[in-house]
């Protein structure tokens, strides 16, 4: 049995809100294998974005563990977490999050340069070409449309060849046509690069492209399903493979 790329063990996240404590995530167990495409679905406030933040080390759990390639990350320092993201994790956000003072090409170059990889410009241009923006590299984000900005964000996310890509509602700010196009690009690139993809969305249609769907409700995994697979599990134990992964056993 291969080591899961991402593993969450009894993950809980609580946040103080005034006099109360809100439970955002409640005892979540999940294992994601290398190369897998997992879509996390759920209504607003179900804890999707927090789940993503915890996987990336952007946030720290109240209890439980996050393991990347078998190594726990919750005890890493801010610097170590940054290095982890630099080497292993790419991001795509709903609001694109391109750096406004950099051109499209420079945005794509940034992760490659941070890693100090050779021929960064060639790689950046290849990726821009792959997302159909080879002529727009010198433009600033403010000069691009929403769809174009998200395509640049896709190119940037794949630039450093991260084994993991985390995408937070990547089509949420785009119209239907543009959203579909961006999603196609995302899945194409993922396939080409062999990347593990965790995609947060509330759009079931988007989720249907994934290998596995995780439904979150009130901070708990309500159910898992595999599109095209009639078997659906109300909990991981119903899926022997999933149960094995969750338990971390071969």
């Amino acid at each position, binding site marked *: 049995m291969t080591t899961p790329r991402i593993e969450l063990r009894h993950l809980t996240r609580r946040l103080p809100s005034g006099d109360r404590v809100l439970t955002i995530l409640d005892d979540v167990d999940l294992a994601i294998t290398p190369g897998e495409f997992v879509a996390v679905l759920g209504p607003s406030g179900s804890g999707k974005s927090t789940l993503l933040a915890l996987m990336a080390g952007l946030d720290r759990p109240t209890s439980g563990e996050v393991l990347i390639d078998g190594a726990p990350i919750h005890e890493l320092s801010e610097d170590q977490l940054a290095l982890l993201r630099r080497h292993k994790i790419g991001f795509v956000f709903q609001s694109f*999050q391109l750096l406004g003072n950099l051109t499209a090409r420079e945005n794509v170059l940034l992760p490659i340069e941070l890693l*100090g990889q050779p021929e960064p410009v060639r790689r950046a241009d290849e990726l821009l070409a792959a997302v159909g923006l080879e002529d727009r590299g010198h433009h600033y984000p403010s000069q691009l449309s929403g769809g174009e900005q998200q395509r640049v964000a896709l190119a940037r996310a794949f630039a450093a060849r991260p084994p993991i890509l985390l995408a937070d509602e990547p089509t949420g700010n785009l119209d239907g046509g543009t959203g579909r196009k961006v999603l196609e690009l995302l899945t194409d690139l993922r396939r080409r690069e062999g990347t593990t993809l965790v995609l947060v969305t509330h759009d079931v249609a988007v989720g249907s492209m994934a290998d596995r769907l995780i439904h979150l409700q009130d901070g708990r995994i309500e159910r898992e399903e595999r599109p095209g697979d009639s078997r659906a599990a109300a909990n991981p134990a119903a899926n022997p493979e999933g149960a094995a992964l969750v338990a971390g056993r071969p």
Partner: protein
Amino acid sequence: MTAGFFFRALVRESRGARGRLIFFVACLSVGVAAVVAVSGLSASLDEGIRGEARQLLAADLAIDGNRPLPPGLDLAKIGLAGAVRTEVRETVTIVAAPPAAPAPGQPEQPGPSQLAELKVIDGEYPFYGDLKLNPQRPLRELLRPDTAVAASDLLAHLHLRTGDTLRIGGQPFRIAGVVLSEPDRISISMTLGPRIFLSGEGFARTGLETRGSRISHRTLIKLPAGAAASLRDIQARLRQALPEMTYRIQTFRDAQPALRENISRIERFLGLVALLSLFVGGIGVAQSVRAWLAGRLDAIAVLKCLGMRPREIFPLYLGQTALLGLAGSVVGIIAGAAVQLILPSLFPDLIPAELIRPWQPGALLRGLGLGVGVALLFSLPPLSTVLRVPPARVLRREAEPLPSHRWTTALTVAVLALGVWTMASLQAHSWDLGARFTAGVALAAALLAGAAVLVSRGVRRIQRGVSSSVRSLWLRHGLASLARPGAGAMSAIVALGLGVLVVVAMSLVERRLTAELSAELPTNAPTAFLIDIQPAQWPGVEALLHKAGALHIDSVPVVMGRLAAIDGKSVEEMARAEEAEMEKAQKGEGEGAHERSAGGRHGGFGGPRQHGPGGPGGRRRWALSREQRLTYMRELPKDNVVVAGSLWSDPDHAEVSVEQEFAENLGIGLGSTLRFDIQGVPVDLKVTSLRTVDWKTFGINFFLVVEPGVLDAAPQQRLAAVLLPKGGEQRVQDLLAASYPNVTVLRIREILEKIVKVMDRIGLGIRFLGGFTVLAGIAILAGAVSAGSARRGREVALLKTLGMTRRGVAGAFAVEYALIGLVAAAIGAGGGYALAWGVITRGFELTWEIQPWPLVIALLAGVTLTVVAGLAASLRALERRPIEVLRAE
């Protein structure tokens, strides 16, 4: 992260938000311009004042002694390479007109004679100031081995004119010119007769030097332009190189007591201005960086998300700040230089145009370093935010920077304090003053922060109470904005409060110094002294003075005497013992025996206080051996204050009142008995009071004042101090020469005018630089308020979306700004009064006078400035359509 990537990232970070960067660079440059302009103007003003004051010494430095400088003294070796020196010798002798041609068969009659002061110049003279001669030619050209240049009153007394012969030391000298005024003849106490200039060769011809005359030696030193070492350092080095008891080292600062204190004051004031403008600039920088970073939080979160470590991002923004500081400094330097260039045409009396040198590379680099240093240092606290931006902000935009870690805060504060201390010390040239300044600033900032917290809590409580009862939405929203957590009111109040503190303190100090200076201006000081008046001549001389239009006349009797014994001990023996002691001490320093002191040259009335050669031993010996001048009077002049004992209080003894410091030099106190030898008659006087004398007034003052009735019958002369209308001195001299040829007139108008000019310049400088700093402070504060307000676009958009009109939003903002301004101005003004009190009473040793107006102005201006600057900066946000802002979110 490679260096190449760092620099690429640095350059990339500089672009994009060009408009915003221009705004911040403008904020920074105002601060830097203030620092650079004040620093440059201070230097020019200081140089101007020094230049004027130097003329009163005719040199940068003068070394006085009763012997020439040691032959082995190499000025270059003590760091005075390139300095030029002139040796001056002075002595007193009788000079005479040649004998009149005898009548046939009659013996030759000697010509009239007069006591005169010889001044022998070997070298260039004067280095500074004007020696007015007739004919107007350099002294060096007029002086030959057989010529002399003499004062006009000497020629009048002896009925001589230019081209005639004068006998000095029995040798004939042709009078080659007339001395009209000398720049460094500043003390009538040194005057025993009219002036005669001789060359070194001419003096050798007189043979006076070999006859054991009392000769005083003075070495005038002119430092090379831009001498690296400060005058104080050079003075200290010379003190080390020369035996203290034999030589006295004077700088222009010591030349005039009236100026000494004021030059010292302006130097302290300029130091204060430099420190405070640096500090105000720092506040502007901190606020600008804070506002700039507030707009970069999202980008920082993205960078962290992409794998940049906090310790890689921090240098990026620090470098960015350094670049901004550099840009701001360059703009500031240009603006500062422009101010300096324009200034002489606006204020011709303040700084002579020739002293303005705005393009000195050293000064520019210093300004650059200072600007970047201030930018980096003061941006440290806001920059530490970079470390604390949560990367999760990419997902939850409302995620604010985390609270600062205790150690990070401590480190930031330590670095900031150390940096402020270093920069303040460099500005003030004193580590001690720098430390005090830093401690004061830290205390003020802590007090302001505490007050801001209290005010915020208080407002929160009030706001809860009034929210239902107050109808005004503006007021409710304004109060709510001030009270909400993380409103930024704290930083605004601290920054504004510190700014107001500086501006108010500066204004108070400036007003107090200006008032003091105008009170001290010697505008009613005498313009001439008349010496050697016989008592019988006085009524006639007085009438003559009135006729010449004298505006004020003071006259006292002068009795010459020798101090014979103190409390029964012979003064001669005491002086000998003192001299033996000094010889011993000097031998210890490897010096040989020295000549007897020319202590008689140091008098006790009229001009500035003069001490004998430096060192306590030297002063005591001088005080003992000098020819004493005594006067008698019933009431003391206004500038005398009895500090011990009481005047004329002992009916059983003849009493004398002694100047306090002179008494210390003599080693006497209340109850001591002084025996004077007055023309062979012993007179015992008991010390019954000690006095302080304000020597700055130029009035007639004496070390020794005797009670009336004791010396009335003693042989005496009168001394008069006269305030004459402009040009009256020549008329009086002509009239006196005709009727009372024995009376010598010493003109001091030119010296007084020079002193008044220097003091005027000091006053104008204080007013101008004080005002400039206040204005720059206000401009910087306006910038700081604007910087804080420019990022309120989202709030404006939301309020407008919720249905508030632009007027309503502006009103609510105005209430909030007004409250911030009011609180900051009130606390800042309080701190400003405290700081000014400390500076005025401790720093300048002046009395504290309450000035209410600056407080009122500070409150009004604080509120107005904050509201106007805040609203002006919010204008763009008010004009934008809400959807534009909300879409960009």
